[in-house]
């Protein structure tokens, strides 16, 4: 069953059209990855879904049209966005970052905090430190944990591996995979590291200059010789 479905999604920065009509479909419980070169429109696609940029076309989340909704209300529907560059609140402590992540919730959040500390023990060690003082990998963990604090049904994750050491990246992907497989969390992932992404994802979209140029199951894309050569670096 389709959880997120975009049809003819368009967006632009000023005069420059960045998205020329994107069709993406994420089913409940699926992990979908968006690949593409720099400037293909991957980040813009994420922002258009989460509502942090003006866009047109159609974005249906859980049967509801959200293309004209604001970012503040989209997160309430169950879409959490981990932006590129992490977007942590540097002046706030680690724990405060987690608490503000649950801003939309009215119920108790203590068990959630404990759970994410368990998943990311390094965050617990640094719970009273300012987020700005964390390392890149720790910030990325914090950004993901913060997004999860809102108990989303769909997690948008924009290049979590950016600027991280390979080991840390693997650790993060392990967590994402577990969340997807064990908790049934749907994930839409943007990634530069195609080989890694293809291992965890079930479906792949390939973007080029604001358009989807290929899509299919991860195996099919990984197996397609032509696509491998053109986009995945052999």
């Amino acid at each position, binding site marked *: 069953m389709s959880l997120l479905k975009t049809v003819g999604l368009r967006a632009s920065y000023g005069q420059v059209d960045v998205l020329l009509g994107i069709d993406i479909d994420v089913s409940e419980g699926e992990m979908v990855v968006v690949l593409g070169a720099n400037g293909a429109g991957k980040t813009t696609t994420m922002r258009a879904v*989460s509502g*942090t940029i003006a866009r047109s076309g159609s974005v249906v989340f859980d049967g509801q049209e959200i293309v004209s909704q*604001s*970012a*503040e*209300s989209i*997160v*309430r529907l169950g879409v*959490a*966005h981990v*932006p590129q560059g992490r*977007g*942590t*609140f*540097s*002046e*706030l402590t680690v724990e*405060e970052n987690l*608490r*503000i*992540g649950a*801003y*939309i919730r009215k119920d108790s959040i203590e068990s959630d905090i404990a759970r994410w500390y368990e998943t990311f023990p390094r965050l617990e060690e640094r719970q009273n430190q300012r987020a700005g003082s964390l390392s890149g990998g720790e910030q990325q963990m914090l950004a993901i944990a*913060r*997004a999860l*604090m*809102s108990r989303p049904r769909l997690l948008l994750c924009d290049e979590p591996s950016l600027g991280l050491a390979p080991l840390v990246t693997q650790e993060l992907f392990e967590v994402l995979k577990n969340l997807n497989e064990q908790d049934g969390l749907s994930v839409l992932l943007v990634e530069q590291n195609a080989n890694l992404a293809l291992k965890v994802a079930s479906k792949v979209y390939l973007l080029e200059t604001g358009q989807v140029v290929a899509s299919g199951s991860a195996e099919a894309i990984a197996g397609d010789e032509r696509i491998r050569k053109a986009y995945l670096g052999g």
Partner: protein
Amino acid sequence: MERLLQYIFDGLSFGAIYALLALGLVVVFRGTGHLNFAQGEMAMFCTFIIWQINDWGVPLILAVVIGMVFGFLLGAGTEATVIRSVAKKSPGGVFVVSIALFLGLNSLATMIWDRAEGYTMGSLFPNKPLDFVRVLGAEWRYKFIGVLVVALALMGLLFLLFSKTKFGLAMRSVASNPESARLVGVPSGVVLASSWGIAAAMGALSGALVGGINGQLTPSLMFSVFIYASAAATLGGLDSPGGAVIAGLSIGIGEQLVAGYIPGWIGQDLKLSVALISIFVVLLVKPSGLFGSLKVERV
């Protein structure tokens, strides 16, 4: 010794008022990155509203509360209508708009309350000649004690709001990273309007306290207080509430000491200059104030 205590005590009361208005500047600056040049004039206007309501027969303390609510609406309304749409077009424009508000509110107050000799403002605290206690030889007037207590109490409340409540956390998150704040569902519009509102409400209270000390109310009531407050905010760091309080109190005390101990050479007129020059010196060494952080760029 008594003299020194007297100066310190008087200085603390004045300093608390400067700190209150300076906190308003800091709340707006931290929340929105803008410098509100009209902070003092908003406070002055609210003080006239308080006077007017009091003049109509409402008890002063109630009038002050109403004035603070009026201040909140004035500040929040200004942000939501004018400031926000100007900020979208040009960040520097907000400073210009705040100058326009400075001129406009001053002019409007002069037009409405146009008695040249000013108006008599009541004090919230007992203010007869004998209303003081003697502590260690220094005269501690009730009205100064009252000012100090009220100002410190409000600062305490504000501190609790910022550090202990969910809304305070939301305000700090918007100040830290507006886009991420939207992504976690914080209604940034409400938060921004509230920071202007809170700043203006604090201004209203500081205006009422200044008016009560002076006993007199004219449209120029807050100008020099605003200069002291902006000095305090600069000295403490525009994004540091604690810095504003410490700097405000220090400036208050320093001013009394300077005027008291070297009156011949400096004189009453120049005590303001002493405050300003010391800020100058501090900024040369630390360009973003004593407790401020360095990332600030916008005007």
